[in-house]
């Protein structure tokens, strides 16, 4: 396997774009990445394109990758359409990474594109729940997050104030991010007093829908300097796992922990080496759980981590400097690649007012879907400068 670097990233601002199409959003993200990488279209030898609900909410009923890329001037190359719920973007990156690492080609594109606003919020909500077999029962991810929290909160004395602190932190970070849908810092009171969605989760603790696209261009490290003079950001690991069956009376290792262990091992990097992380905070408490599941702290110490400000932009290990899903919004398949873009910008020192101090190693965690009794997918990617 060859060493692989990310040489270009790009995204649209996430937001509500009722009049924009997947083609339009995808074109913007892809060309931002092409310009960032300083490659030409003919350099791209394979493309992986993630989309989750386009068939339900847009005019495009299949081969969405080809539709989007053709209109962006990219055609004739292998295009692989990827659907992996909220993990689609990272799954696309894994495909591009493996194509280059294996020597199949030198440069590959990964794109995630999603249109959720269709003028009918009920249809959008139904589409987002449709990835589970329980949608027909009225299953909602917010309920799942909430019920999974109950025992952990009681065991470790975690309160909704801790969750609100995550939102306060991330909304501040988002206020410094021109690509975030929401750019207003929130106070503890605003978060705690917003509408209860599923106790203990309030409205502002939950990520919201967004339209958007994000892209990355990966290149064999050997030839990367032919294209770019920017710092090369290497993919040290890009690991994907799916959920496992829960057997009665047996401990069930969290899907994130399993993905992270594989990534740390492959990268020969430990959680103590991580300088910055972008994690899948579909709901604010998930970020705290992820501190523990990714090994950024010990089990039961997540609340102390947020209390002590260790994950703020100036903390020991900043988490979600982009503002996370809560501030950016969550265009399902674009989210994973937007996390990658943020870590690349941070590692290059290009993150502007939200730049953290001299990071060398970054991590993204991108989980999605629900199958049987576990998340359907989880990807952990480790990048290093």
């Amino acid at each position, binding site marked *: 396997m060859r060493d692989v670097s990310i040489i270009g990233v790009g995204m649209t601002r996430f937001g509500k774009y009722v009049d924009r199409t997947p083609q339009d959003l995808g074109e913007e993200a892809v060309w931002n990445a092409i310009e960032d990488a300083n490659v030409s279209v003919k350099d791209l030898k394979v493309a992986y394109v993630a989309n989750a609900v386009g068939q339900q909410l847009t005019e495009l009923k299949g081969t969405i990758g080809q539709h989007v890329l053709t209109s962006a001037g990219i055609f004739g190359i292998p295009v692989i359409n990827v659907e992996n719920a909220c993990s689609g973007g990272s799954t696309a990156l894994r495909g591009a990474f493996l194509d280059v690492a294996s020597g199949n080609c030198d440069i590959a594109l990964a794109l995630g594109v999603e249109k959720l606003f269709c003028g009918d919020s*009920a*249809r959008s*909500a*139904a589409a987002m*729940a449709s990835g589970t*077999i*329980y*949608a*027909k*029962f*009225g*299953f*909602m991810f*917010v*309920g*799942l997050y*909430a*019920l*999974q929290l*109950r*025992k952990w909160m009681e065991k470790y004395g975690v309160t909704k104030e801790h969750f609100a602190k995550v939102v306060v932190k991330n909304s501040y970070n988002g206020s410094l991010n021109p690509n975030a849908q929401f750019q207003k810092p929130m106070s503890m009171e605003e978060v705690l007093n917003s*509408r*209860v*969605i*599923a*106790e203990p989760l309030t409205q502002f603790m939950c990520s919201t829908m967004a339209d958007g696209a994000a892209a990355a261009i990966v290149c064999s490290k050997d030839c990367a300097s032919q294209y770019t003079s920017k710092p090369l950001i290497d993919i040290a690991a890009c690991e994907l796992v799916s959920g496992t*069956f*829960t*057997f*009665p009376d047996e401990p069930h290792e969290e899907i994130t922990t399993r993905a992270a262990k594989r990534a740390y091992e492959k990268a020969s990097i430990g959680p103590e080496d991580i300088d910055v992380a972008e994690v899948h905070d579909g709901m604010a408490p998930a970020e705290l759980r992820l501190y523990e599941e990714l090994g950024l702290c010990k089990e039961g110490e997540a609340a102390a981590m947020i209390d002590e400000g260790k994950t703020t932009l100036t903390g020991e290990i900043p988490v979600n400097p982009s503002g996370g899903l809560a501030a950016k919004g969550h265009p399902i398949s674009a989210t994973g690649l937007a996390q990658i873009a943020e870590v690349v910008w941070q590692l290059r020192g290009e993150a502007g007012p939200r730049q953290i101090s001299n990071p060398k190693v970054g991590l993204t965690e991108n989980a999605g879907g629900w199958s049987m*009794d576990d998340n359907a997918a989880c990807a952990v990617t480790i990048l290093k400068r």
Partner: protein
Amino acid sequence: MEKTKKQIPVEEGLFYQPSSPDEEPYLIGAKCKDCGLVTFPKTPVCPKCAKRDTMEEAHIRGKGKLDTFSIVQAALPGFKAPSIQAYINLDEGPRIWSLVTGCDPSEEALKIGMDMELVIAKVREDPEGNEIISYQFKPSGK
């Protein structure tokens, strides 16, 4: 002329609805002939043994304990809020996701570890007014 409202299962082959008061409802799961593992919804292959042709249909009586729960104030289109969404640890082994009915949607009405039992109940009405019914759980004795 008013049409007769029907009861329509949310999904075929998931549960049995009694047709007389003498009968009890049950969940239609699967049990492994080799290791005894029970799955619900039923799986054609035992996830533990990972061999073919070891699973046979099993009727799950529907007694269990409340593992954890959430009172959800939001709802998908066509569904009513609040709802109670929960994990139930079935006596036969599997932990399953379920709606909870038969009690107030309040923290006071539910307690982790309490006995729960299966009921067949409405989850929503379709646009024609038919009842879409499913398996749900209620606190035992309620």
